[in-house]
């Protein structure tokens, strides 16, 4: 099993859960450790319960894991909700003045801090948090200096007095733990690596900047708003125009307008906003102006659960906008991939002049992961496709006046001139049109021309298929069970396979990143050797299972689904696989044990 260490910090929103989280994350990261953080929270700005889990380790940590090693409840509610999750070897550090522990499992170390004895709580309202950080750090076997450095940075702006005060409080907690609490048996390791810690939203925004996005616009919507925040904060340095628009209809249309002028344009939203963008996507396809749209899924339908995760928008994406048109849909596999995918999908969208859709979810958007800086490549290949940006780049330009924006070609791709280029004047239209852009929707209606234009656009699908890589099987080909997932479940399925293998059940994984085009034949080719197939997805109806069946007629042996708003934990999948292999059920819906 993976050697990892997980801390959970819980409290009321506004009580300062984030700060200890940031401090621990910084300390772990500077020790050269990997980490994954997931914040379970509610849609309340102040007072709602929130539980932040930070899991760290020497190796790559891809998900929140199954075990909490250290619980720091900042209020009674957190203690009451979560103490029962702790098992032998775990510890719970709490303020003994205000919180009563309740009964813990055997082997759980209760670590009460007499906060008012140790510090002057009238002077420092978050003293309990800082004491707990100090105490926790000692128990993890980390020297105090690491904490001192981070506290100095954290409070530098508030002046030397505040810095000294906080270091003093942290030291008191550290020393108290040294005297009274038993340290964890394995001190946290240290490596020479250095990692960046980022959310999926920041990763997608940065991926956009790396892809050469010059125009970003959005309407705030959880859990996509982090993309807007990164873009807005970095716009001037990166030379990106960032606009907050009146609604998502305006967003998609504004993005298409900018894209039509010749820049790369991107926008992000969640399911509800994406629904409003639907008609605009059809325009992007019809006028053949590429745009990239990110949908950070949250639990639906309708307003749903805005702060919870789900993979429930696949069919919305597949069916967005009426009529047939070429589109690309990809789901990033982890937070590092959130960065990497954006330049890739822009290249496809630009080459094939069609909308590119990114299907992310709250788990990645708002989760945090340590990523090696090398993975954040700001010089990825940029392929703008057949774009005419100056006169003379097209032989059909001003010389003979014969430029046809929608020229019928074998590839279906017609060279695209941007407004401002002499000799290429044309009008694009959402109405069906001829090669020269003139409408064939009214006066010149013509079934032959309509068919030719449909076929021209749809011919791009074949090109897109060959431009997108086929999925590959992870693990041994002859495994007892094959777990099939898509997008953000990659890490948790991967770890489930490792655990299953340790338990004597050989398991492999097929994780889908490109949803459209799907490469159905390649998938069938992989699955024909599989002995027992189970599709794992974070929704009620098995949206991917139904999609895979519609494209390939493939029906798996079983399903593992979850639609309670929370992500899978490895043991959910492991236990479900075992019950399915024992023939107990074909559909497992694991119960989420952590209530937030």
């Amino acid at each position, binding site marked *: 099993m993976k050697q990892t260490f997980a801390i959970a910090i819980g409290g009321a929103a506004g009580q300062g859960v984030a700060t200890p989280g940031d401090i621990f994350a910084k300390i772990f990261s500077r020790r050269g450790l990997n980490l994954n953080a997931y914040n379970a929270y509610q849609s309340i700005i102040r007072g709602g319960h929130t539980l932040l889990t930070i899991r760290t380790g020497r190796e790559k940590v891809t998900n929140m894991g199954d075990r909490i090693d250290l619980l720091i409840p900042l209020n009674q509610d957190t203690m009451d909700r979560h103490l029962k999750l702790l098992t032998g070897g775990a510890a719970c550090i709490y303020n003994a003045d205000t919180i009563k522990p309740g009964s813990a499992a055997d082997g759980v170390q209760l670590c009460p801090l007499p906060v008012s004895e140790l510090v002057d709580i009238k002077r420092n309202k978050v003293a309990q948090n800082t004491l707990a950080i100090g105490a926790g750090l000692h128990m993890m076997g980390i020297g105090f200096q690491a904490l001192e450095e981070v506290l100095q940075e954290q409070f530098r702006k508030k002046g030397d007095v505040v810095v000294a005060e906080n270091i003093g409080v942290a030291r008191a907690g550290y020393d108290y733990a040294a005297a009274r609490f038993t340290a964890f048996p394995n001190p946290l390791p240290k490596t020479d690596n250095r990692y960046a810690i980022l959310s999926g939203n920041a990763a997608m925004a940065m991926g956009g900047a790396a892809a050469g996005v010059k125009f970003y616009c959005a309407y705030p919507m959880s859990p996509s708003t982090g993309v807007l925040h990164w873009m807005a904060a970095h716009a001037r340095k990166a030379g990106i125009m960032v606009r907050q628009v009146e609604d998502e209809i305006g967003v998609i249309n504004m993005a298409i307008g900018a894209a039509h002028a010749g820049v790369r344009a991107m926008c992000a939203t969640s399911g509800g906003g994406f629904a409003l963008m639907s008609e605009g996507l059809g325009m992007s396809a019809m006028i053949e102006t590429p745009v990239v749209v990110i949908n950070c899924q949250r639990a639906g339908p309708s307003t749903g659960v805005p702060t919870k995760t789900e993979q429930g928008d696949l069919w919305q994406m597949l069916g967005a906008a009426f009529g047939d048109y070429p589109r690309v849909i990809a789901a990033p596999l982890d937070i590092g991939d959130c960065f990497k995918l954006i330049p890739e999908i822009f290249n496809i969208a630009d080459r094939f002049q069609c909308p590119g859709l990114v299907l992310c979810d709250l788990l990645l958007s708002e989760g945090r992961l340590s990523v090696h800086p090398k993975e954040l490549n700001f010089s990825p290949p940029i392929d703008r496709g057949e774009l005419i940006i100056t006169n003379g780049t097209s032989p059909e330009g001003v010389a003979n006046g014969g430029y046809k924006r929608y020229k019928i070609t074998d590839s279906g791709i017609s060279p695209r001139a941007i407004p401002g280029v002499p000799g*290429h004047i044309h*009008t694009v239209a959402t109405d069906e049109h001829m090669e020269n852009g003139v409408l064939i929707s*009214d006066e010149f209606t013509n079934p032959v021309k309509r068919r030719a234009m449909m076929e021209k656009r749809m011919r791009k699908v074949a090109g897109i298929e060959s431009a997108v890589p086929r999925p590959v099987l992870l693990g041994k080909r002859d495994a007892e069970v094959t777990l099939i997932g898509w997008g953000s479940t990659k890490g948790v399925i991967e770890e489930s396979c490792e655990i299953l293998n340790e338990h004597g059940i050989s398991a492999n994984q097929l994780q889908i990143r490109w949803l459209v085009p799907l490469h159905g034949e390649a998938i069938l080719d992989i699955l024909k050797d599989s002995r027992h197939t189970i599709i794992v997805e974070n929704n009620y109806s098995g949206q991917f299972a139904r999609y895979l069946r519609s494209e390939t007629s493939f029906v798996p042996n079983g399903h593992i689904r979850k639609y309670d708003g929370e992500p899978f934990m490895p043991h959910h999948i492991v236990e479900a696989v075992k019950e399915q292999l024992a023939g107990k059920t074909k559909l497992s819906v694991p119960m989420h044990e952590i209530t937030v």
Partner: protein
Amino acid sequence: MATGLQFAGELTMADLKGKVDPDWCPGCGDFGVLAAVQKALVELRIPTHNVVTISGIGCSSNLPGYINTYGMHTLHGRALAVATGLKLANHELTVLVTGGDGDGFGIGGNHFVHSMRRNVDLLYIVMDNQIYGLTTGQTSPTSRVGMKTKSMPFGNIEAPINPISLALAAGATFVARGFSGEQKHLTELIKQGIQHKGFSFLDVFSPCVTYNHDNTYQWFRPRVKKLEDDPAYDSSEWTAAMEKSRLWGDEIPIGKFFERTDLPTLHGAEPVLNQGPLVHCDPRVPPDVARSFIEELM
């Protein structure tokens, strides 16, 4: 909106002619608007490849197909949003947005209001015929109370919006009204609207000869009074403009209601554009900036 305005050589009306002739009903007010737009561009000598005409959906929104500039015939109600994105990506282009009253004040009402408060540098011409034409005659946001249409056969009971008052309230920096039957006057207003730096709104009475039998040329002609004919009228006075905008009945003012030139345009207010149009900028993030973005996360 005179940014990057370069003068072309001599332009003629033939240079502005589109690939096909309009398929509007004979007598439609939109012919007059098209001609006035073409005439204004000829007189301003703006190179046709630097002009983008953007429309939504409706009879009048077919206009970009009939004029020899770059054009975008977008979605119903969305032309202003598309135009805003395009202008911000390349602010050297002259942007004209054309459409009807249903497109602009109905389905596109939200974008209309927000484009004005943003002071996007473009000219928005609404061919206002107080009816839905392309869907064969339903009530529009500017149809008068009592007007009988296919969708309100017993008469409209909803008060119409007043586009001029709305534009003034929303912060448009150039607000005018024209009449398709007053070609010279209309052409002059279009020229002023193009040259104005900021959001120029031009509401044009453009009678629908097929479906609107109330607001005809004959109905408008005796009523329209040019603001320019009143030497006492001062179009820099917002309050006076608002007052004039309420007039409706025997006297309906046309002309320039309001103009102010002291406010920055949207693209002028954004320092990201100081280096020139985005479309001409290097797409790559400079290596030192990229490094600083990663350093923040370490």
